[in-house]
């Protein structure tokens, strides 16, 4: 507790007491401004329990607000709103006495009941179909599977439709308090992600040519947020090499239910090869068998255990003169119940010349999410390379000058006729 707060405590007590008693005897002004003995005693007893003196929902005066802000809590909403809350009895949202609103709620509730009935019916149908022998179904085992999958899809649809019109669910989702174990919140989160963030990442994948260069095709289905310490990284941003020296923190939000294991790969797809006059790839980080579920979203790369880790974090570095390097952080989902043999991977997968395509094919992985950042030589790169024992900080790449085989042609036509300085203003 801060010193000033301690100092302000008796004053708070005075104010509170005067507020509580309202227009009572205490409003008589006293000669001394210091508190009386018995009040001090009361203060002593109160100061033992650390109660929150001011409610951030109901502070209205400027003084109280200031005091509250000093304790680190900020008042919620406008002063007008807080005053309204203070004076009104706290009716829950669904019981607010607005006629049209209540009628609307009745309609929505009736619809929800209908949907719940439909869900029960669909469940029964599914269990009936599961119990039937595929030999009796027209179309056999394959038809049974198809029907089951389509019925399950319809069931998921019904589950979402049952809850999508609930204002409280909407509110809870907007406040970020949605329970990601429930399908409706996952659906809403997915929709929100697809509205903007997914479009951006898809555009970056296309603009930075991740798709033909690293993978043959890729549709992101999970949201990946990338950060280095406290620095959030927007997709495709240029990151200072000193910032990316530490392993990245990932927040991966998947929108389908269940726990799964994922593999994380960080790949640099622009490593220059001077001998061949070409570029190759390099794996900067590889860890496998990391559990992930809709509720567990945080994946700090530094937290991977020795069993999970294949290649530890190699800080991104772009040597002087080489064009910008694209670093893509891939989240690859493993097949359900399958673990990746990290001991085998440690032996057989080399970081240099790492091929994402063959890795994905070999271990039967599905790419679900991607985070992208870029890096270029900056003043910190040499230090980073030196600290991590990477050689080549003194190398500077330069473009080879290509001498044209054809001699330069003399100006012809319009250019030749307007070559003199007389037409200088016409030239660009």
């Amino acid at each position: 507790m801060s010193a000033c707060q301690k100092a302000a405590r008796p004053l708070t007590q005075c104010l509170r007491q005067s507020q509580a008693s309202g227009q009572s005897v205490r409003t008589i002004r006293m000669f001394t401004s210091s508190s009386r003995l018995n009040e001090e005693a009361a203060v002593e007893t109160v100061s033992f329990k650390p109660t929150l003196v001011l409610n951030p929902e109901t502070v209205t005066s400027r003084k109280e607000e200031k005091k509250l802000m000093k304790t680190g809590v900020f008042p919620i909403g406008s002063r007008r709103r807080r005053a309204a809350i203070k004076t009104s009895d706290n009716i829950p949202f669904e019981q607010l006495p607005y006629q049209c609103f209540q009628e609307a709620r009745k309609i929505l509730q009736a619809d929800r009941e209908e949907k719940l009935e439909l869900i029960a019916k669909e469940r029964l149908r599914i269990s009936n179909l599961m119990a039937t022998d595929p030999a009796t179904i027209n179309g056999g085992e394959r038809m049974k599977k198809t029907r089951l999958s389509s019925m399950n899809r319809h069931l998921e649809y019904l589950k979402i439709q049952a809850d999508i019109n609930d204002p409280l669910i909407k509110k809870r989702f907007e406040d970020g308090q949605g329970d990601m174990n429930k399908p409706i919140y996952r659906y809403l989160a997915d929709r929100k992600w697809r509205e903007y963030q997914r479009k951006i990442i898809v555009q970056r994948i296309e603009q930075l040519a991740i798709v033909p260069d690293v993978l043959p095709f890729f549709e992101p289905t999970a949201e990946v947020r990338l950060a280095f310490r406290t620095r959030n990284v927007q997709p495709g941003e240029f990151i200072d090499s000193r910032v990316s020296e530490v392993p990245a923190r990932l927040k991966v939000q998947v929108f389908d239910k269940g726990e799964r294991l994922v593999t994380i790969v960080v790949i640099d797809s622009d490593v220059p090869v001077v001998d061949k006059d070409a570029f190759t790839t390099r794996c900067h980080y590889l860890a496998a068998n990391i559990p992930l579920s809709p509720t567990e979203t945080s994946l700090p790369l530094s937290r991977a255990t020795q069993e999970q880790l294949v290649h530890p974090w190699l800080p991104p570095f772009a040597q002087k003169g080489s064009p910008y390097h694209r670093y893509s952080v891939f989240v690859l989902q493993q097949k359900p119940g399958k673990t990746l043999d990290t001991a085998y991977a440690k032996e057989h997968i080399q970081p240099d010349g790492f091929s994402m395509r063959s890795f994905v094919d070999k271990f039967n992985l599905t790419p679900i999410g991607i985070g992208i950042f870029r890096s270029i030589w900056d003043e910190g790169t040499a230090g980073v390379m030196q600290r991590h024992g990477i050689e080549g900080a003194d190398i500077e790449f330069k473009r080879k000058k290509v001498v044209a085989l054809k001699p330069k042609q003399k100006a012809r036509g319009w250019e030749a006729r307007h070559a003199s300085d007389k037409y200088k203003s016409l030239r660009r």
Partner: protein
Amino acid sequence: MASTHNSIRQMVSPLLRRFQSLSLHAQNTSKPSLRPFSTSPTLLAKPERKRTGDPRVTLIRYHLQHPATPRPLKFSRMRALRHWTIHRAWQLFRRKKLGAEELELQRMYQSMHETMEVLRTMDAPGTKDAGRLYRVALEKKGIFGKGGVPVEYARLQTDTPGKEAWDHSWTR
């Protein structure tokens, strides 16, 4: 234009004014050799203001940010939520009503279709009045006005539009 200038000057915060006066002082102290021609204090002299940007943009921003300009009307959060609830309920209600109407139309059509089928197959083929009721029921006499012809008969009905949409050269 002059009036707007005055009002803009009124808007300038006291902090800015103090800063300007400070900078003016600094200018005066740096050139002590130059005696001012007028005896009025330099503070009252009109400060030269730099013109930056598009004046239209400045004016728009000035008027939009003026405290006298009312803020955009907006529902409070809870009220917006209630509005949303009512909107969703109304949409649901309307969708259900439309669906019910559609179903009713379908039912009526099916019923007519069944009736016609019964009429068509009532008599055994080969009898004298076979399908008479069916034919009578399908007659459209008089329903297109007196002596009218159904519009379907005006042109031969085809699945796709003709190669030539309208024959302009045709005359009777």
